């Protein structure tokens, strides 16, 4: 690991003043669950780290009945929070399955949302890949069994954050603080495809911080997430889905269906949402939505199987949201 200087930011203002405009030269560090690995592997070699664990680490109710989560909140605090599980099960279920107990106790919400991709070409120094300024996405003709089945490249990572998927499904708002003030960005707009942003995965600029995630009041929804992992724990999901179903009686009025580990961003499926609107929750509805969700997929040479996995995740998330048996 390259030597670096360390700033212990005492406030948001302090932290912002310590950041800079050049990508990867000065980086914010929360729990360090992702960043330290990147540094040990020399994927990033920042000159300065700014500790942002000192930023807001509270979960608070908003006036309109939602929740505002400071980005320094630990993942375990979401899991153990008294109200969150009831209000946002799709989010809390995901938080509870991230990494290991150690990671959940040290990792933060901000860190989870802003972590870099786990693509093995990106993470191994030998491969000077597109995302690192090279000319090739090695996954295209290489080992792509864990890569994206949606999107047109040119980089084929899958977004690594599971919280991101639930945030998009619930329609969360991200508060971004920067040198020129504060802006709110819809979670769905926060994450960016590689054709828009090859060297990063979201709209956050090097001199900005993600400070809060605000979840709207849940209202009359049924929601759930379903993850498919090969290993039972401490493994990245092969594919997963969060669904938020706005109900009118027994009928789904409208739905948000977002898949994870299938695209460079949390992948919202309007096709699946349309398949659900106006229907009641049943195995047939769920399966139809699952099929619709993956119909537009464009798998690579070695990851077509992920279509089946993602379809299953969508269908089972719907069944789970409806309180039905998933398998």
């Amino acid at each position, binding site marked *: 690991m390259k030597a670096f200087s360390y700033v212990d930011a005492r406030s948001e203002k302090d932290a912002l003043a310590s950041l800079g405009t050049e990508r990867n030269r000065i980086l914010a560090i929360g729990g360090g669950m992702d960043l330290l690995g990147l540094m040990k592997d020399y994927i990033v070699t920042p000159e300065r780290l700014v500790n942002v664990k000192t930023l807001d680490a509270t979960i608070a109710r908003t006036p309109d009945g939602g929740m505002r989560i400071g980005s320094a909140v630990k993942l375990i605090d979401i899991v153990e929070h008294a109200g969150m599980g009831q209000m946002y099960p799709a989010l809390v279920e995901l938080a509870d399955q991230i990494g290991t107990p150690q990671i959940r106790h040290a990792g933060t919400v901000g860190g989870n949302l802003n972590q870099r991709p*786990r693509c093995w070409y990106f993470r191994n120094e030998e*491969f000077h890949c597109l995302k690192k300024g090279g000319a090739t996405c*090695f996954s295209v003709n290489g080992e792509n069994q864990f890569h994206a089945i949606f999107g047109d490249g040119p980089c084929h990572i899958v977004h690594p954050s599971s919280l991101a998927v639930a945030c998009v499904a619930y329609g969360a708002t991200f508060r971004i603080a920067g040198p020129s003030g504060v802006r709110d960005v819809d979670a769905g707009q926060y994450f960016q495809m590689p054709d828009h942003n090859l060297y990063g995965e979201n709209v956050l600029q090097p001199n900005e911080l993600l400070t809060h995630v605000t979840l709207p009041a849940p209202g009359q929804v049924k929601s759930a997430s379903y993850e498919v992992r090969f290993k039972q724990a401490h493994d990245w999901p092969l594919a997963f889905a969060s669904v938020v179903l706005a109900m009118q009686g027994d009928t789904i009025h409208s739905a948000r269906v977002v898949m994870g580990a299938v695209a460079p961003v949390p992948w919202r499926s309007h096709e699946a949402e349309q398949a659900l609107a106006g229907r009641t929750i049943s195995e047939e509805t769920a399966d139809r939505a699952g099929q619709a969700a993956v119909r537009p997929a464009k798998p690579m040479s070695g990851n077509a199987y992920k279509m*089946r996995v993602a379809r299953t995740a969508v269908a089972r998330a719907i069944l789970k949201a409806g309180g039905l048996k998933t398998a």
Partner: protein
Amino acid sequence: MADERGQVPEAAAPAVAQGEAHFAWPAHPTYIGKDIRRLDGPEKVSGRAKYAYDIQRPGMLYGRIVRSPHPRARIVSIDLAAARSAPGVKAALAWVEPNTVVMFQGEEVAAVAAATEAQAGDAARLVKVEYEVLQPLTNTAQAMSPDAPKVFDGGNVREGAAEETGDLAAGFKAAAHLVEAVYSTQVQTHVCLETHGCVCEWEGDKLTAWVSTQAVHGTREGFAQALKIPQANVRVITQYMGGGFGSKFAPDAQGLICAKLAQAARAPVHLLLDRKEEHLATGNRPSAHAKIRAGVSADGMLTAFDGQTWGTGGAGVGAGFPLPYIYQFPNRRRRHSDVYINAGGARAMRAPGHPQGCFITEILMDELADKAGLDPLEFRMKNLPPDAPDARWREYFPIAAKQFGWSRRHPTGDPTPGPIKTGVGCSANRWGGGGRGSHAHCEILPDGGVIMRCGTQDIGTGTRTLVSIVTAETLGLPIAAIRTEIGDSLYPFSGGSGGSTTAASVTPAIRVTAVKALDALKEHVAPTLGVAAADLVAEEGRLFARNAPSKGLTWKEACRLLGTEPVSVDGQWQPGLSASGTTGVQMAEVQVDTETGVTKVTRVVCVQDCGLIMDRLTAESQVIGGIIFGMDFALFEDRILDRNTGQMVNPNMEWYLLAGMSDIPRIEATLVDQPERGVIGLGEPPAVATAAAIGNAIANAIGVRLRSLPMTPARVLAALEQERAGGTR
């Protein structure tokens, strides 16, 4: 122990023990065969046990190796200047000469030593190596193709001699059903939790090395030969180690580099590898591929086997494995080729060759059983070799079947509706084991203390505990009264811990030595008691006349009679206390989610023998560990090389998957005690059969056969998809 190819041969020893009565194992033991807890457990779990990684020496530096990022490249130049002048650097060396062609990613090129680990890491990156990158062979198919670059002297493919028995044509003529299929197993790395490496310290021309090794004596010899110094000048110490599985028999390049750095820097050097280096450069299990045609008669008897096999052990290392495994094909032919590619070389790995041969044969057996319309277990019983002391599958399969509930097996394909399918599978294993060659030294001190020394090493299996058990048993003392000293090449010679030979080598040596020491004590005590030495027995902390137990002394009183001169005797392994050849069977149950391809192993039942059981608890632990090892081979582990560059994409424990606690099934280990055979050994056998049993269970669950390991969701779903599209059978 390991030959120059890194392979540990199976021991060839008698299957039944017949030894000198004086040293025979006790008929009614106090400790042997009981559940004895590992003596060093508390030290390990509390962090007090010092592994090579934990050794700290005054003025110690940290070493770091510069490795080739290219699987094949010519070294044009190595420039150490910038590294030499980096902060904290005390030594830098080039490990290879310019013009050398490196043959695998991770091959050692240069090294540095610096005051801190971080400084060494930074300095290593300042070593400027200019490479002329050459086209690598990245997989067996490419290496075998006629237009592949000729990379290895003598060819990329080395064809072995064909083995042929019986009349193949007649065998196929007698077949009512045929199976023709291709099977494969992947390259698996050892993933020792403690990585390879050592701490080296010179005192003048004498080297002390704290090494994570399976062979303190073999590693002493390795250092001496490579460094051209007398073996007497080398001391190798391994008090604790975190796994070897066959990959840690020698100093290796990193050990020699560490010694050279320590010499150059005139300071002790700590050089232990990181996880990536461990995957790339410290060995692996070769892959195996088999194209097979086999026949079975209408009444379910095997008639013929014709197999073409190949595999890669990486750069210049062979990939042999036994095939067919265990079952008897009267007419058979096998042709095998070793294929070389530009990847880290294979080393011995827990039952070298056997898991591959077992998987391929046992999957084939289930396919043949299906063709013949027989239950797989019934089919196996018909085709097993005849019973022998080291061939008891006919006895163990029914025991396992009863415990497992095999009779509830459904035919291939779980008819239960819904996506979750359950299935069961079985398989068998064999291994040699057996012992030889160990020496020991015992002292009985005038204050009653007992020291037993043996230059073996405890690679995590409980050898330290076994030495204490046998000594305490023999001297009639509590286990805690024995001071056991192992893991040092200054102690009497004992071989490497490989081939499941440690228990069968060490425990007889300890038994003989302890009996001799006791004999010497008895000679001292006999005149005082007025009893012939031969009539004395040592039990429960006393030495007394066999026929008049009140005529005796406490152990301490007896030892006090020694005056100032301790009993000090040497002993060594003798035939008759150990044997060779083990038998085991396993049955596995799995649940497969046919909508995600995810397999969960829910239960494994195992019946395994290992001769005379020394410590039932550590023996069971070996079996449980072996089954987990086999399950990882079945489902998770896979060294994945980029097909274009040959570089490993998963040199970590993130994408190189290993089971976690929640992935581990219920494991029921039934150990068959065979006191009449003496000690045999158990490290290898339980790891052999698990993958095959799981593979057969998956086919039984989903009704489609997978013939390649690991059985990932991608492979399960692809097989189901192919079945829907027109069938694989």
